[in-house]
């Protein structure tokens, strides 16, 4: 359905989306990413469904109306770069890239199969993936290096990194926060999927992040705080982020782990459990199967 909608608005010669999707189309894209994530993780009997559902809207907005890219030319020199640092949310990442036109949706069936390039953590080799992640705390430093390179070569492309909240426990992120601000990398945007849950418990009970906004501001970043499931709010924030002057921007996206499937929302269990047949059916039903 997404594919057809996108064709209806017409792609350019590169298969790129011509103009930003509107709010309804963004919501539809996010829904498709969620449904595909549920199906992939069910089929592969793998983990991290809650993490995927949490970031679906962020991914939809980035690919649906913020980033510049050419699906038929994934290494187009002027493309915006996205690093998915929470690499365990691989299903949602691959689903997004398929929906964005980097590969046929059918290829997502390779996820979890033997001899597949679709590893359970985001892996380069999958069309559209910039860098492999999976060990937390690696994405923002790499994104910062890319932003520095773009700055030094006076290139107009921009860099986005999607981080998770538990991931911010890693000191490497704070080293990058400090560096990016010091160098005034306003072509860098970090989106933090702030769902309040990590591997064993809540963020609050594991390592408190609050006051996160003040922390980031004190590191020299501009901070925008939004509802991470409101596509309009996300779009406005990311639009503002990319118009930044002199400072990198962090978008704190307030999310719910497992968002969209009520029995998964806010539960650590769905960081691990793949849905069984009945749970998959119920989840897809609740999300709405689309056409």
């Amino acid at each position, binding site marked *: 359905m997404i594919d057809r909608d996108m064709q209806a608005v017409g792609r350019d010669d590169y298969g790129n989306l011509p103009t930003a999707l509107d709010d309804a189309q963004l919501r539809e894209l996010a829904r498709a990413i969620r449904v595909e994530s549920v199906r992939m993780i069910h089929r*592969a009997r*793998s983990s991290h469904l809650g993490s995927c559902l949490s970031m679906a809207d962020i991914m939809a907005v980035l690919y649906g109306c913020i980033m510049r890219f050419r699906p038929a030319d994934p290494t187009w020199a002027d493309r915006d770069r996205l690093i998915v640092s929470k*690499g365990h949310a*691989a299903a949602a990442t691959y689903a997004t890239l398929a929906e964005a036109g980097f590969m046929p949706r059918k290829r997502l069936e390779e996820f*979890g*199969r*033997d*001899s*597949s*390039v*679709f*590893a*359970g*953590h985001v*892996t380069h*080799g999958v069309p559209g993936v910039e860098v*492999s*992640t*999976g*060990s*937390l*705390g690696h994405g923002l430093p790499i994104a910062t290096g890319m932003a520095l390179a773009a700055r030094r070569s006076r290139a107009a492309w921009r860099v986005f990194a999607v981080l998770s909240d*538990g*991931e911010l*426990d*890693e*000191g490497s992120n704070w080293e990058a926060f400090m560096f990016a601000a010091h160098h005034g990398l306003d072509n860098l945007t970090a989106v933090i999927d702030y769902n309040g849950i*990590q*591997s*064993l*418990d809540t963020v609050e009970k*594991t*390592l408190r992040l609050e006051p996160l906004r003040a922390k980031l501001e004190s590191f020299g970043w501009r901070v925008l705080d939004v509802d991470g499931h409101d596509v309009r709010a996300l779009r406005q924030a990311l639009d503002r982020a990319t118009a930044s002057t002199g400072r990198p921007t962090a978008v704190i996206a307030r999310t719910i782990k497992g968002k969209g499937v009520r029995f998964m929302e806010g539960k*650590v269990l769905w*960081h*691990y459990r793949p849905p069984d047949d009945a749970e998959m059916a119920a989840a897809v039903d609740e999300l709405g199967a689309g056409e």
Partner: protein
Amino acid sequence: MRSAFIQTLEALADEDSRVCLIVGDLGYSVIERFAEAHPDQFVNAGVAEQNMIGLATGMALSGRIVFTYSIGNFATLRCLEQIRNDVCYHQANVKVVAVGGGLAYGSLGASHHATEDLAILRALPELTVVAPGDPVEARLATRALAEASGPAYLRLGKAGERVVHDDEPSFRIGKAITVRDGGDITLISTGSALPLTVDLAAHLARHGTSARVLSMHTISPLDKQAVIDAAVGTRLIVSLEEHSVVGGLGSAVAEVLAELPEPRARLRRIGLAHVFNRTVGSHEYLRSQHGFNLETVSEITDKLVEELNGVAR
């Protein structure tokens, strides 16, 4: 191995309040009972492995016996310098525990394949490196490491490994276990290669070759005497490890053999190819991609045995 480890650690923590567990935001459905029963001996360091090892060192230098727990490379490579400078150099009583050694997290991708850890950690001075071969060895190793003061790395598999030892073997750190005696050739195994190794020995026996099987659970310090005995007493040594062929058990054995006078047994290293897995799949699938299954390793050893017998004739 995971359950054997945590159950043993729970018992140790009951017996000795100095025994502590620090996890790096991992261990769901594994560590809960420990955490509830011993709240003062448990802490979750969060997703922050470098800090975790620093904390462990600080606690160890304050009289605790500290086990750190994470998976794959997060437990080791992510915090390697902390392990070297803080733990090893200070001889701090920290036991670094990793689950998912080798390719156990097959489909999760290269970030989760722990295939160089033995090589890297074996290079650190004063670090005892142990890779148990089955759940029985995992239990015995956990207890032995808690009782021996000083830095250690314990490399575990994941869950559901086959039990090889029907009877409890005598277990000493740094001393190989002779799982099966034999006079023609010697198979030396470490970690999760043990079930494959005993299967290989059974295959060889069916074809008239008597193979000694050593479980070299301790990679550092290596049981050199066991290697020397094998080199002198048998004509071929085959090392088996679910780890890169570069730098691990095979290399450790080669270092001993290379300095022995002739005549001595020749060596064949069997392990994982020195590459990243750019396609993934199940644990079984990935092992077979590396030729790390009975079919391929028995072909290799059959050929070597044939060559040996040819030379003898």
